[in-house]
């Protein structure tokens, strides 16, 4: 049933223009049967959170290759809290050093997928996470 489809926002926060990864993962999610909303470039945290709430999304996937991951993850997690939308899972990938990952998970990221991660691994994780969340 269409209603049961996982709804995921794939977003490019900030000024980073590297959208190859975002577009590949967006297509992979779509091909696996999810409903994908791809934001395009230059999104502020406010715009991303707004989109996720309006689209009734289960999750937000952030793609960041500019080194600004700390800033955007914490801003988006914080905004979701403020809007009582913390049930929306935030995850991401990009050029993110392994040593930064524990802190991102600590502040509320569900998972961080590094370069070279197969799309199937992201899909599996998201399916499992959303089904657990929905109970």
């Amino acid at each position, binding site marked *: 049933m269409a209603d049961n489809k996982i709804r995921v926002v794939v977003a490019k926060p900030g000024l980073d223009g590297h959208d190859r990864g975002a*577009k590949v993962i967006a297509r992979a999610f779509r091909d696996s049967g999810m409903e994908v909303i791809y934001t395009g470039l230059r999104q502020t945290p406010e715009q991303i959170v707004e989109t996720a709430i309006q689209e009734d999304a289960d999750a937000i996937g952030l793609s960041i290759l500019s080194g600004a991951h700390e800033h955007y993850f914490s801003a988006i997690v914080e905004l979701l809290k403020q809007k009582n939308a913390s049930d929306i899972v935030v995850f991401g990938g990009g050029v993110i050093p392994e040593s930064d990952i524990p802190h991102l998970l600590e502040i509320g990221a569900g998972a961080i997928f590094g*370069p070279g991660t197969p*799309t199937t691994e992201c899909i599996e994780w998201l399916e499992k996470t959303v089904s657990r969340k929905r109970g």
Partner: protein
Amino acid sequence: MSGAKQSEELTAGREKYKAAVAKSLERSPERRAAFTTGGGIPVERLYTPDDVAGLDYMNDLGFPGEYPYTRGVQPTMYRGRFWTMRQYAGFATAEASNERYRYLLSQGTTGLSVAFDLPTQIGYDSDHRMAQGEVGKVGVAIDSLADMEILFGGIPLDKVTTSMTINAPAGVLLAMYIAVGEKNGIKPEQLGGTIQNDILKEYIARGTYIFPPKPSMRLITDIFEFCSQNVPKWNTISISGYHIREAGSTAIQEVAFTLADGIAYVEAAIAKGQDPNVFGKRLSFFFNAHNDFLEEVAKFRAARKVWGRIMKERFGVTDKSAQMLRFHTQTAGSTLTAQQPEINVVRVAVQTMAAVMGGTQSLHTNSLDEALALPTDASVRVALRTQQVVAYESGITNIVDPFAGSYAVESLTKTIEEGAWEYIRKIDDLGGMLAAIEKGYPQQNIQDASYEYQRQVESGDRVVVGVNKFQIEEDDSSRQLLRVDPSVGDNQAKKLSKMKESRDNVRVKETLEEIRKTAQRTDNLMPRILDAVHSYATEGEICGVLRDVFGEYKENVVL
């Protein structure tokens, strides 16, 4: 031996070989049913004189430094001097980046290449809301001439050439560079270097656009004209396939879309009444050196040949140096793996060989840790040494275009050339590159190729060493990585507000007003931008005025 006898023997030899292959295949099949290049071009088992039978040496290859430049743009190539070893660098503050440049120069780089942070590339000052979290991250933060003076402190601008990866605000950064020169007694005509200034590939693949296409093209042709008259040694544009390839295109698409962008720029400048024999000499190009060695060598050769033909036949250019495609190369960042990063050194070495065999004019080699973070001093040194080993030790630099006449490389060169022409014709049919971008044509093609590549990697059909084969358990958490201090943003904003207090703000306002008025007319913006820069107007202020007049580009999202 007569030609007839030779061909008879060749036929007999071919038949014999075919039989031997059939027998061998019976015993054991080949590794795969069909072989292709990295860019998806089908390749044969063997190439023979048959494959180059149609080749006309003078028409298809010619001599180095002569039309159609397939064999290179100089008669002696690297026997004269090596390519410029130019490492793209910049991070955090002007002070930190200046230190990195001096280090690179002390280690034998022969040109500078400035990486700006994203706010600078998109025309925001460091204190802008959109700059939050991004200041100094992927490059150096430059807000005004004051930062630029620090960035080039102690570097002789009359002796070093500088490449700046800056597009939408290219005129502003070029003006700052000219101003720094002037303050040090160096005249604009003595300055050598390149600005990227290639907005079309920003729409297609790289994403740091500001203004809509029409005013963007005007800014570009203003720069062409201004530099023709005032900064004659400056490369006014670096028409870039690098980012198109990084976004996932094939080799043929890289050549085709880049040269189609080039056609759009030449047409725009001609429409402004400029002479392609003059501005054509300062057009430069920028390509990617990817993994498939022979395909890449062929790609560079094909690109030179196609561009030579475009300039000569399509635009009637007679000046030889305006027909030549001169290019910078960067090894392919997207081929670097976060897994077992040491092996990236080997990938970069292979890609370096391809760039050199392809006749590049300058080269950036990526560092082994770039799938993880910005490179450290130590990893940048290895990258530079890779170029130096190829230059001084490999011997491939002693013969001009050594692959010419290779049945395989000449065939691949021909295939890439023909493939590129096909796309160029298609783009012409769509109404040129601007119209094609609006329709999402190059974007869609690149995305399809990129998704196909990812599928091949995931199915194991395409092997990436260390990623989908030969993996090991690694703990990378202790690796030394370059980190940009998070306080850089705040400090840069403080520095900026202090600078604004000390400058002549009345003068700043006047110069910005002049930019506004000129933007509303059609005369050249560059002299006005130069005045504003001299008065320490910031990049964000200048781009802000232009945003007011020109508006902003909205991405055509293609998925």
